[in-house]
């Protein structure tokens, strides 16, 4: 059974005036896909293709005009209306590493906040500090990071803390919205390694939003290509890159640059 199912999703940001005139296209227009509990699905597209909007609908940060998002077969709405267990199960890593963390809070209190909100996820029988240090070690950070604030961390470290915050709730789905796009190349592969490692160790499903086809090829099981709010093609990664079906996918692949073959 699929972990996430998105059915006929329609989202627009029209004002009432624009809706009445009906000239502006929808940001997301009739998108459907499924995500299995242990797979990595990448949504690829250019800016304005609606890929981030789809991700925000899945996590419940964006309201939709039509369609449904099903989690474990049950429809879920905006994040505020989701049951705590569902809320725990779906977490997100954002694009801007520094802005993902409240700059006034220490890493320790950022992680502790998740447990204070979800006592059921809090470590029992151990001190929170020990659990936080363990969590930080899991994402490759030293224990002394716990007392620091985002402003004292590098982009890569911030992104690791973001991942640790998500993992603290033992989620089943991790949505990564351009999670490595803002990082230096030499740091990008650190985070990609971390994500693939976590996925194997914890049985996470990952919804990976990106515009970087190279990254997609490295980590995705399946790929969904979006163009102007619509899903133009969904295929396994190998199929998509070897045998692109849709003309737009082909155009995207042709335009992508590689180090070799210049």
């Amino acid at each position, binding site marked *: 059974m699929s972990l996430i199912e998105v059915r006929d999703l329609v989202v627009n940001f029209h004002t009432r005036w624009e809706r009445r005139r009906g000239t502006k296209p929808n940001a997301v227009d009739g998108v459907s896909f499924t995500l299995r509990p242990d797979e990595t699905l990448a949504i690829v597209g250019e800016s304005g293709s609606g890929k981030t909007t789809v991700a925000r609908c899945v996590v419940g940060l964006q309201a939709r005009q039509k369609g449904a998002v099903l989690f474990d077969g049950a429809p879920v709405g905006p994040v505020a209306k989701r049951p705590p267990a569902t809320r725990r199960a779906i977490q997100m890593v954002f694009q801007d590493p520094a802005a993902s963390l409240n700059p006034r809070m220490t890493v320790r209190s950022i992680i502790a906040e998740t447990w204070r909100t979800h006592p059921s996820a809090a470590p029992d029988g151990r001190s929170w500090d020990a659990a936080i240090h363990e969590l930080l070690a899991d994402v490759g950070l030293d224990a002394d990071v716990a007392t620091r604030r985002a402003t004292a961390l590098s982009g890569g470290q911030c992104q690791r803390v973001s991942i640790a915050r998500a993992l603290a709730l033992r989620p089943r789905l991790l949505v990564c919205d351009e999670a490595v796009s803002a990082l230096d*190349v030499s740091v990008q592969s650190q985070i990609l390694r971390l994500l693939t490692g976590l996925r194997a160790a914890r049985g996470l499903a990952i919804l990976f939003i990106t515009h970087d086809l190279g990254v997609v090829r490295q980590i995705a099981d399946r790929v969904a290509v979006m163009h102007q709010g619509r899903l133009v093609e969904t295929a396994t990664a190998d199929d998509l890159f070897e045998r692109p079906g849709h003309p737009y996918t082909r155009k995207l692949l042709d335009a992508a*640059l590689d180090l070799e073959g210049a």
Partner: protein
Amino acid sequence: MNRSSNVTDPSSAVLDAEPAPLLRVEHLSIDLPGPAGQVRVVDDVSFTVAEGRTTGLIGESGSGKTMTATAIIGLLPAGAAVSGRMAWHGEDLVTMAEQDRRRLRGRGIAMIFQDPQAALDPTQTIGRQVGEILRRGGMPAKEVRRTVIDLLDRVGIPNPETRHAQYPHQYSGGLRQRAMVATALAGSPQLILADEPTTALDVTVQARILALLRRVRDEEGMAMLLVSHDLRVMAHVADEVVVMYAGRICEVGSGREVLNSPAHPYTRALVVSVPAVRSKTAIAEPLPGNPVSPAERPSGCPFHPRCAKAQDRCRSEVPQMRQVAAGRQVACHFPEEA
């Protein structure tokens, strides 16, 4: 301002295998005032930009690549201290009077910026902005209009007759960048500095803009200094590349050679980190740590804390640039075989 002496300076005869250098940057250092005193953001950087060629300046955040380009166009923030030489047609840009520098800007050396949205004045038509340098140069209005339309046509903007009267917000991202290229071309410069010209653009647009840059360079016989963190862009456009890390140069050489067989461990790490699209690659063995900022540059080789091959010598002694092959220089004590 012993300008004539620069031309015959013996130390400048280092990298002369390639075509005549248009711009010769020698021992350029830039200090900026920071919260904790002066910070050397660019340290002892030397390279040349040859006529008709594209030189790529590669680097991650804090590498000093943008500062280097800014120094060349002469728009460093107030308080910046520049030392070294930048030889341009026998004159030193570092010591040149501000008035002469200004005359050079736009006409001798033009610049294309990363974000075309932010770099265009929202209250003026594209045509007015493209033609500004011509108008200020005293060209009659009618001729300016004709030249502008011709320029817009040359950079591939459709319907230039109507498009030139439109405002930036009516242009798409790709068209705006084309308009920026047209603006840069308006002064018929000999050197174009392009600072991350495609970073803010989509993949499909990026390829077209790179093609455009290459085409105009060939047509005009200009030199181009391309500043970017994207090795894939470099592989496509740059004839020569200069790799920078923490304000210093790691490696200089022809683009093909450096990117195919990097000699510096840092360049090698960068090259293997780039995921391929046309073949499936494993995720690269990551470098430990983060790019270091010039403010906290470690002793010795700035890259040594992240380098697997680092020895005691790397921690104490700054590696000097040395020739490893024809036109190929590396600042590493233990370079890979090129």
